[in-house]
């Protein structure tokens, strides 16, 4: 019974959202506001359960581990920005987050996103089919970088190379646009499938 009620509510809200295709209306606004409210409520409930209860309350209750109060107190300082007199205290948790975040991520990000990618761009070229990709990637990277190099006027050979860079960029945007269309159509298909299969049982 609960499932059927859920399906009817979901179908009704889906139709409310799609009613925007006609024009903005109170049904759409109701569904939109309901979505925002439910998402916020759900996020608060899960955070309460997974962070506050499991990571702070339970260690104190079951293991008498009160050290968890230290990070909890540092975290609470994030709210100090709402009190003008103590606003400066927010710097402490932020300093902690930025310090730990930067320290942990800089070496790994350099390794994974810069060195590895650079190495893959500069692979040795051999006389086989696989090397065609290597050449295309290398030419694409160089031409695109030159397109974004603004210290030289884009005239003559630099202009030609930067135009090739534009072509690579356009191909990349085209691929991204194609994938975006595919994603959006997928969302529509899923909703139509839900309405026809789960709700109306036509298919």
């Amino acid at each position, binding site marked *: 019974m609960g499932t059927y009620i859920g399906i009817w509510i979901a179908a009704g809200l889906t139709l409310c959202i799609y009613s925007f295709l006609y024009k903005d209306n109170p049904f759409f606004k109701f569904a939109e506001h309901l979505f925002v409210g439910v*998402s916020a409520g*759900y*996020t608060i409930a*899960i*955070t309460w359960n*997974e*962070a506050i209860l*499991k*990571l702070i309350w*339970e260690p104190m209750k079951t293991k008498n581990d009160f050290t968890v109060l230290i990070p909890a107190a540092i975290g609470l300082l994030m709210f100090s920005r709402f009190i003008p007199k103590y606003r400066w205290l927010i710097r402490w948790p932020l300093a902690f987050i930025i310090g*730990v*975040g930067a320290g*942990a*991520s800089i070496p*790994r*990000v350099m*390794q*994974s*996103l810069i060195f*590895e*990618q650079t*190495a*893959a761009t500069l692979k040795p070229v051999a006389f086989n089919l696989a090397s065609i*990709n290597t050449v295309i*990637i290398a030419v694409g990277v160089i031409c695109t970088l030159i397109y974004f190099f603004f210290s030289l006027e884009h005239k003559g050979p630099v202009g030609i190379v930067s135009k090739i860079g534009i072509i690579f960029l356009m191909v*990349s945007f085209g*691929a*991204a646009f194609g*994938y*975006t*269309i*595919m*994603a959006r*159509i*997928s*969302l*529509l*298909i*899923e*909703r*139509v*499938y839900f309405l*026809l299969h789960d709700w109306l049982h*036509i*298919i």
Partner: protein
Amino acid sequence: MLIPIGLPIKETGEVKSVYDYIEKLPPGSAILVSMDYDPAALAELYPMTIAILRHAFSKDIKVIGMTLWITGASLGDIAMREAAEGKAQMGEDYVYLGYVPGGANVIMRMGEDISAVFLKDYSGRITSEIPLMKNIKNYKDISLMIDLAAGATPEAWVVYAGAKYNQTIAVGCTAVSAVGYYPFLNTKQIIGLIGGMKGAAEYEKLIKTRGTATAGMDSQSIAHIAIIVLIIVANISYFAMRRKKPGE
């Protein structure tokens, strides 16, 4: 959808490599599946999740599920229960650890001890006491990590689990973000890439199942043809109007 045409679905190398990797894993191996998405990405990632989980369960591969997305916490549980129905036992063959806040920190700490990060699983059992987790401490005990993502989490997995702990990673993502992960495929930082509903349909074909992704592919293909036709027509009319202008 009303009248299935059955247009062919050709599996691509990047999807097949994920399938092949799981196919070659010995029974009893463990994989980690992070379902980092929310209901907005269900259309593309849910069929993919079900297909991968069913494939793993059919090969007697143990699955550890989790999520880094707070709004996806219950979706992972639903997906694992659906895929496991009649095929796998919770606690023995699979476990769903749910959500823990922390993002990249969670990924890094899992490299030391998973049970210390997820103290309890989604249903409230102490993680270290779950039979499946008794032999799994960290990434060293996990043969493959699959990130099914609606956002940028694959990058975090590559950076923190891949680079730091040499964890083998595969990615399943929404079509919108697929383009961004091909560079990781090129560098072999990920072993495979399943992109959008098309990728999910390919995986369903590989495991010989007709799921919701396969059902939607006819509509998908026809919609693409319609958009291609519209782009061509719009361009012809644009050039025709431009040619007409000087002598109006």
